[in-house]
């Protein structure tokens, strides 16, 4: 919300945020580069083009991450897969956020109704949601849009819970009581105080949700659900490379695995920094 009273000197310049959280800044940069690299930067090889004369070549100057059993360049495929995997993870998280936060606000009423919806969430979450997601996507005939639905299905209850616990805690704050005392309506208290004050945890949770979604998407394509060959994806590459592992051809599985690991690490670092930045410091 626009603040008429913020004077020029009160806001910190943007760069100090980067300086205070260097690892998060590097992480964000890394993710951004990964997202655009596939389309913007020229790839050394076509990620979908097999080369029968260059199968399972170890990493070299020519093939940085080596080639897989069909002769495709692993580096090009890892980069191309980033768009697929990160795109699905971001999409799934966006849907989770847009559905989960409003629903969370709805169930954060104090009465029996809110209590009952939490019980319903308990029952829903007791169900193995990864299995449900797998079933959903494979039964739909591996539709990519269903991967997003599956991610949302897993994360919407988490957002709802988080919002509810956050809002219930905030409701007890003195400044919320003070807002009612000045004559604010429930809706105004919600928009003006409750939502802005829970923004921090929402941002942190979103970052963690993306990391979690990357792992889930990789797990699904590992078992052949969701993004499957010839579409490049980290999970299916690890799956294909697992067979070569036993023969010492480690690079086929290790490089996509490393990228899953790096992405998760990056989003965790970003979540950490967001938590720091959004927490209000006293004095």
């Amino acid at each position, binding site marked *: 919300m626009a603040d*008429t*009273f913020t004077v020029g000197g009160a806001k910190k310049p943007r760069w100090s945020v980067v300086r205070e959280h260097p690892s998060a800044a590097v992480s964000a940069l890394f993710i951004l580069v990964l997202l655009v690299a596939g389309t913007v930067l020229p790839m050394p090889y076509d990620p979908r083009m097999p080369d029968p004369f260059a199968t399972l070549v170890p990493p070299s100057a020519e093939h940085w991450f080596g080639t897989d059993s069909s002769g495709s360049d692993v580096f090009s495929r890892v980069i191309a897969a980033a768009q697929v995997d990160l795109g699905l993870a971001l999409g799934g998280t966006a849907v989770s956020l847009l559905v989960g936060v409003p629903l969370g606000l709805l169930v954060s009423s104090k009465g029996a109704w809110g209590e009952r919806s939490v019980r319903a969430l308990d029952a829903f979450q007791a169900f193995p949601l990864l299995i449900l997601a797998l079933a959903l996507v494979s039964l739909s005939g591996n539709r990519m849009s269903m991967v997003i639905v599956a991610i949302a299905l897993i994360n919407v209850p988490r957002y709802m819970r988080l919002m509810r616990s956050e809002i219930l805690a905030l409701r007890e704050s003195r*400044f919320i009581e*003070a*807002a*009612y005392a*000045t*004559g604010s309506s429930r809706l105004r208290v919600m928009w003006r105080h409750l939502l802005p004050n829970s923004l921090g945890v929402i941002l942190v949770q979103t970052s963690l949700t993306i990391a979690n979604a990357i792992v889930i998407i990789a797990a699904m394509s590992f078992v052949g659900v969701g993004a499957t060959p010839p579409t490049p994806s980290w999970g299916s590459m690890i799956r294909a490379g697992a067979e070569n592992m036993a023969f010492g051809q480690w690079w086929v599985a290790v490089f996509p695995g490393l990228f899953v690991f790096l992405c998760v690490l990056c989003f965790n670092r970003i979540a950490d920094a967001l938590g720091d930045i959004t927490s209000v410091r006293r004095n």
Partner: protein
Amino acid sequence: MPPLVELAGVNKTFRRPGQAPIHALNDISLTMNEGETLALIGESGSGKSTLGRIILRLLEADSGTVRFEGTDLSALPDREMRYLRSRLQAVFQEPYESLDPRLSVGSIVAEPLRVHEPGLSQAELRERVLTCLEQVGLPPDAAGRKPGALSGGQQQRVGIARAIITRPQMIVLDEPTSSLDLSVRAHILELLAELQRELGLTYLFISHDIHTVEYVSSRIAVMYLGRIVETGTVREVFDDPRHPYTRALLSARLSTDPRESPPQLRLTGDIAAPTTSHHGCVLAGRCPLVTAECTAGPVRPRALTGDHEVACVRADETPDLLAPAVSR
């Protein structure tokens, strides 16, 4: 002139599942006149903050009526109550906790105006906020800062600015100075007195500090375990306390005059749990003057001279009965 605030037979019990109910307020009747400062004094747990919240309708009374300017607040629809809040504001005990940490001071003070006078332009809003900040002794550049960047005293000034910006008739001050340093406390009390003179405010001053109360208020209501045991003007209550509890409370006060020996009265035992319900006088179990009559039935406040009301069956005799204790 009819009283500004009138409470009659207000009861409030907090019921918690699986636990004994807490009798927070019991048959409270109280009137406040325009322009006065009524101090509500009592130890923590006596129900004074609950009473403040009931007058503000942040809590609903179980029974009884609360009238403000003749309007029965409990019968008022939510929307009308919200409008009325521009005339009935509050300042809370913890200055920092009562300010949204994310909003700038200017926004916090502007908030009641945005609610009650939505037609104001940005420039008018700014103007009103800056004037108000000046009134409470804050520099204009405080408007752009977050509450966390201010000192405790300044934070409480922000809380006061927020309360006066809609030009209310009355402000409930819930221990406005008890979390502040002694030196800061005096400044805030001076500010409150000054604003009262300038704006003709009526204060309900909730406090557990008898020294502060003696300094700021015109009338006093003493609370004990959810009941008002004694009311009167400051002089009536401080110079001639009739309820044994008031006596005991004043015994804890230190005089600035070393020759003056304060009237001594010691209560026995500890304050009863708020979950117990009392048939007779709430103090009966601890009072040195207890008689059979005290536990026989409810002890209601009755008028003595002037404004003085005391809920004690032996109110007429207490000065004589306690005299030996004074000379000791």
